[in-house]
């Protein structure tokens, strides 16, 4: 009797434990590779390190230093500049491409889709190297056009042109990728809606404003939020394109400044602080965007 009962008990226990064991690997990995580093970086932001062993508690000292640091503000401004450029230039271009590729009049859609999508398959480092040649002051593709008007622009050499050059490179690299999302969204809009709009006498523009855009809202919200997060985390493109953010930090971004502090200046506490400030900036902007785009609204 005892044996039978014990087996039953074990079986019951096992039934209770088994699901947790099945999901355990994910949580273990998450705790080791995400949870622990996150908490440890939060703790680190309250300390300052010097050398490989010494550290000292500074409380919110790193945060107050950061808000008084002009290079941080300049990096934040540059990052915001890029994010706004992405929002106002890259995403409209992506939407326009998607609409063109979704229309009946364009031929060779498959080829064009692949062509526009292809840049995203190229690693950021290579994109930066390619565009270094494109923006070449003497022989670059861009200046070959501008020289005709008598102006040889140092795209990567003059403060005011650095961020526009980075934004244009971002458009080349990412517009095709976002186009795919928009295209999927466009293909999901029911044809009947357009037919009903046509019956009501709507022209192409009215149909776009009142049918296409509202139907694309979830896709737009997703693309905007994801692009914004990507923009705020910008690093490799300007780092290589401008050779570390010069001249005069005109190409410096928040993540670049974080990298410099952590790895070049060995100020790991300060770098962790920049990381957490960036996290809060991204969180706030994303929530505001999702609210504005009505994602939290009950349909």
């Amino acid at each position, binding site marked *: 009797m005892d044996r039978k009962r014990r087996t039953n008990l074990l079986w019951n226990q096992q039934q209770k434990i088994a699901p947790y064991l099945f999901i355990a690997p994910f949580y273990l990995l998450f705790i080791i590779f995400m949870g622990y580093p996150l908490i440890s970086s939060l703790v680190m932001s309250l300390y300052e390190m*010097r050398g490989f062993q010494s550290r000292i508690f500074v409380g919110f000292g790193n945060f107050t230093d950061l808000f008084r640091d002009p290079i941080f503000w300049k990096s934040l401004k540059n990052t915001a500049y890029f994010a706004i450029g992405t929002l106002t230039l890259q995403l409209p271009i992506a939407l326009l491409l998607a609409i063109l590729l979704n229309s009946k009049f364009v031929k060779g859609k498959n080829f064009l889709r692949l062509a526009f999508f292809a840049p995203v398959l190229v690693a950021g480092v290579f994109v930066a190297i390619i565009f270094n040649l494109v923006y070449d002051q003497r022989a670059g593709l861009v200046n070959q056009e501008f020289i005709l008007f008598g102006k040889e622009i140092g795209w990567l050499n003059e403060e005011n042109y650095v961020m526009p050059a980075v934004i244009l490179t971002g458009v080349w690299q990412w517009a095709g990728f976002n186009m795919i999302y928009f295209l999927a969204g466009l293909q999901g809009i029911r044809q009947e809606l357009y037919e009903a709009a046509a019956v009501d006498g709507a022209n192409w523009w009215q149909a776009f404003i009142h049918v296409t855009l509202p139907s694309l809202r979830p896709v737009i919200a997703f693309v905007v939020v994801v692009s914004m997060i990507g923009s705020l985390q910008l690093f490799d493109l300007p780092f290589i394109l*401008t050779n570390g953010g010069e001249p005069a930090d005109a190409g410096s971004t928040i993540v670049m400044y974080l990298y410099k502090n952590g790895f070049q200046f*060995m100020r790991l506490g300060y770098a962790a602080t920049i990381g957490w400030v960036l996290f809060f900036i991204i969180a706030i902007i994303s929530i505001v965007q999702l609210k504005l785009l009505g994602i939290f609204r009950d349909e």
Partner: protein
Amino acid sequence: MFRLPIDAESFPLGKGPMVMLILFLISTLFIFGRSEEQGEDIEFWIFANTHYEEYQARVPIFEAQNPGVNVQLINFGGTMHDKLLTAMLSNFGAPDLVEVEITSIGRFLKGAINEVGFVDLRPRLESEGWMDKLVVSRFTPWAYRGRIYGIPHDLHPVVLLYRDDLFKAAGVEMTEIETWDDFIAAGKKATRDLDGDGKIDQYAIVLDRRTESDYFSLLLQQGGGFFDEDGNVIIDSELAIETLEFFTALFNEHKIATPVYGTWHGDPSNFAAMQDGKILSILAPDWYVGILKSQVPQMSGKWKAIGMPAWHPDGRRTTTRGGTMIGITKQCENPDRAWELLKFTYFDRSGLVNRYETTRIIPPLKAAWNAPIFKEPDVYLGGQPLGELFIQLAPDLPPRYQNPYWSEAADLLNDAIFAAVTEKQTPREALTDLAEKVRNLMAKDMDRWGEM
């Protein structure tokens, strides 16, 4: 027919997991089951391709001379310094021997003296009598607080490389140039609008205003620097301010300098401008001549070189730019063996002569300088024996004192130079502000830690 004891269908959850399990077992066997190679391993990290190729060719000789020693050369390229930093920070995984670049070493020297992750090589250098055999000023970038953490790979003396044909066409004989005043006078003749369209077509010199490279070279040439030997900030000294005034005047007052095309002197844009004849001269360390030869071979025969113009008659005709060291990390288990490999790669005369053949880098070991190769005519310079010029200048190299704050300081110095050249600040304002920022940074740490 042979059958597995379990078949795919009866394996729990089917075929997929079984394949994964088999792959897992095979890879585990591969990783842990490798028979340990007999003998001792020396791990050696490198970041420069040319160095890696050189050591790849020479390490088998060392291994043959030292039976039982296996040298593992690992070339991490540009990311090596970050990997080394992580390894030292976690106190695990650092190599035995490593090469470090001159602008990167500062960050490894932060913290208390005992926290530095490199072995002090001064006792070995002194007891074996190496100090006198090398150029002593070249230890300064790798030394701090009395300890020497690395052996210099190079000297990197700087010369003035110039277009003899174009200067001659402007009526200037460059070999007669002795001082910077002479150069400015010559530069004014050679900086010209050739086609009369109101735009300058050729500039006497190209200088980098984005980064510290050229300005700092000029400052070092006069014995100045950012930090002095004791670690004090001296970038707002009269010498530093006057040098920056001179540097900005070359652009704005004398108008004989053009900013570097592209992002640095090795940018394709800059090479294109050279080929167009827009640039007549450049301050060139030995390694830069190597880059020119490989990147712009079509300009062979067009360049000549002289020592840099001096700041006053009989003044120093060179400076130094760039550099690499080799060091032994504290994680190395057998520093004696690592020291042997270090000596083999850095102090072997025949190896150093080979190095010059491929990279044009002049070695710090004086005994290597009398090799015939350094006197050979250089085709790229129209037959001028460039090695001889470099060696003639080498004993006069200025010191370049290292400091743990160099990375922060250099980053801010870049901004100060750009602000001065673009006339957003006067050189005095730019350097005074800069010095204050770096001093504040150091003072803050001083408050926190009680020592530098």
